[in-house]
């Protein structure tokens, strides 16, 4: 509990739910918080919540949330001592981290050197190989189409084409046969160039029924490193996670310890400090696991780890950045109960998960024991197409997995989010499935089994209710828009239990 040079003021270089989450964590430690926002986000909750907020540019992320110079200017202008990057945007940009340090500020994250080492996927594979961390057969090196074709023959199909600079599934393509390779290389390169300004590619064996199991690690600046158990994140659509949980239904104590040790070895190989996540692909049959990549930042799904361990990862990040040692050892940590997170997206799962924009007309979050909501939206806010369509995360905790699933289903049913199409009903369908209950959902499951998913039929009762809503309230409550031709408009003066 040393209060060495605690961070007095923190700039949060992000938006949405994660900015809100970090502001809360920092405030609990007594830090002053500075939010940044683009013109599109003036009404966003992170702006209202922070002690101070700085407008940093137009809606386009490249000129606001991705603009390192305006971020640094905002830090200078507000006298912030430290910068927390959240996830996405500049979070894994080592040059930005270095610029923060060069400006005499504290970077809440690992060293730029560690970020660089893990950010280069090809280089990271080589490092992991040396550190004895298991890897899938793959190829990194000169990436001309001819070289890649030759390497692909060696590795065998199906395989993955990945962006060397990438993460989060961006630019990743599954290639099942040789004749699909050229098109996949072209498409992956185009996406990688657009997303990272770096079109380099690598190849990796594809495990069709693999599970995504990742391990949270945390290290201080004195070289102490622990793992904080796993998160199962196999429910994905198009390589992006939608449901995460801890513990993983596939792990037993032995495998957990083995994967945890591999994650710590991976982090040690780059002298990692602060919070990070080592992602593995797990073969559900053989229980062999393989290093995928390390995310050198706080993860979207960090709350499930928090709920099963009782730790606050954001506060730990800030304390570590301030130079404090880890307040616990590996053997002090334990997982209790079960936690599940659902990511609520503005998207239409029945139309290829097409992102949706629109105004949040009505918003009510579920409440109750074991329910946590990390939201980046408020009622009345307009969701634009400028940013990631994730609106919020619903996280539950319960004593065991079946209870956690039941609690999540109840929480999803209680969530009222009107004005845009969301994936709420899709999440319900996945959670209600026998496959989810059995814990057999692999990373390709949603794209393979649920491609034709459509919401259940609309009950006629709902249509009738819509007609009733459309007709407006009984005459007395005519502050609402009102249809004079409605048959209900003639219920003059009829009111039961109205406000009098």
């Amino acid at each position, binding site marked *: 509990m040393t209060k060495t040079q605690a961070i007095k003021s923190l700039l949060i270089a992000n938006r949405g739910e994660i900015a809100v989450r970090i502001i809360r964590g920092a405030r609990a430690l007594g830090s002053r918080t500075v939010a940044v926002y683009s013109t599109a986000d003036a009404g966003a909750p992170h702006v209202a919540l922070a002690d101070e907020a700085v407008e940093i540019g137009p809606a386009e992320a490249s000129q606001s949330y991705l603009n390192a110079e305006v971020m640094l200017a905002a830090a200078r202008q507000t006298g912030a001592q430290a910068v927390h990057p959240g996830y996405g945007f500049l979070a894994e940009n080592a040059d930005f981290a270095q610029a923060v340090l060069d400006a005499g500020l504290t970077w809440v994250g690992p060293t730029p050197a560690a970020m660089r080492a893990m950010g280069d996927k090809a280089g990271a594979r080589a490092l992991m190989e040396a550190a004895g961390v298991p890897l899938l057969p793959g190829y990194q090196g000169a990436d001309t189409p001819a070289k890649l074709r030759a390497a692909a023959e060696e590795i065998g199909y199906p395989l993955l084409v990945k962006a060397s600079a990438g993460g989060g599934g961006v630019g990743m393509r599954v290639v099942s046969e040789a004749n699909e390779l050229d098109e996949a290389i072209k498409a992956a390169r185009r996406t990688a160039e657009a997303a990272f300004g770096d079109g380099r590619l690598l190849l990796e064996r594809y495990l069709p029924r693999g599970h995504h199991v990742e391990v949270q690690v945390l290290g201080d600046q004195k070289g102490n490193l622990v793992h904080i158990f796993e998160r199962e994140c196999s429910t994905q659509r198009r390589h992006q996670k939608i449901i995460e949980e801890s513990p993983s239904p596939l792990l037993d104590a032995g495998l957990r310890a083995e994967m945890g040790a591999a994650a710590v070895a991976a982090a040690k190989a780059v002298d990692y400090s602060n919070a990070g996540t080592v992602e593995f692909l797990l073969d559900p049959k053989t229980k062999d696991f393989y290093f995928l990549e390390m995310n050198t930042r706080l993860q979207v799904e960090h709350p499930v780890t928090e709920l099963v361990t009782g730790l606050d990862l954001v506060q730990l990040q800030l304390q570590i950045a301030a130079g404090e040692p880890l307040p616990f050892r590996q053997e002090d940590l334990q997982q209790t109960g079960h936690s599940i997170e659902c990511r609520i997206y503005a998207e239409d799962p*029945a139309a290829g998960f*097409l992102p949706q924009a629109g105004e949040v007309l009505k918003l009510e979050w579920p409440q109750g024991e074991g329910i946590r909501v990390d939201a980046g939206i408020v009622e009345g806010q307009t969701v634009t*197409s400028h940013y990631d369509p994730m609106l919020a995360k619903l996280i539950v905790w319960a004593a065991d997995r079946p209870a956690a699933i039941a609690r999540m289903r109840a929480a999803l049913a209680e969530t009222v989010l009107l004005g845009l199409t969301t994936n709420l*009903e899709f999440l319900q369908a996945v959670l209600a499935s026998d496959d989810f209950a059995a814990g057999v959902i692999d990373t390709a499951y949603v794209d393979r089994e649920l491609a034709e998913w459509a919401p259940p039929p609309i009950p006629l*009762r*709902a*249509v009738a*209710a819509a007609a009733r809503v459309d007709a407006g309230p009984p005459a007395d409550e005519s502050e609402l828009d009102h249809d004079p031709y409605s048959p209900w408009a003639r219920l003059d003066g009829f009111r039961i239990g109205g*406000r009098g």
Partner: protein
Amino acid sequence: MRRIYKSGDSIFNLQVLGDIVQIEGERLKIEYLHGEPGDWKLEIDGQPVRVRWAKRGRHIWLHMAGRSFHFEKAAGGRGSGAAGGNADRIQRAPMPGQVREVYVEAGEAVEEGQELLLLEAMKMEIRVQAPRAAQVAAVNVGAGDTVDKDQVLVELDGEDQ
């Protein structure tokens, strides 16, 4: 009083008579019990149900019994028709984004399913395809253009090829 509501691909024809709603041959009695704007207690066929709702123009959103629904009231509110007619001829942007590439030109004949252009938004690529064999009447956007949802991208010739 007749009303038509659309929800996704479903179209519902309603007959509203006092507090009776007839839909698809079913009769439902619906009564307003009490509430405040956006949060009503209704009674449908004798069963009380809480309905959270929002209205914007012809759009009605509601949440009841753990599910959310979106309806759009058909324009005019009588008969069918009007909608649909141009759907096949005009290709609109399904979401706001940026046109990455345009593959066709005005005057060109396209096959059903042929890619017309590539749209990118929110980390996604969307391939806009021809819904049927046709001739391209007009291409209204170019690579690099930013487009709004429902903006007309490509127009095809009439139905009779």
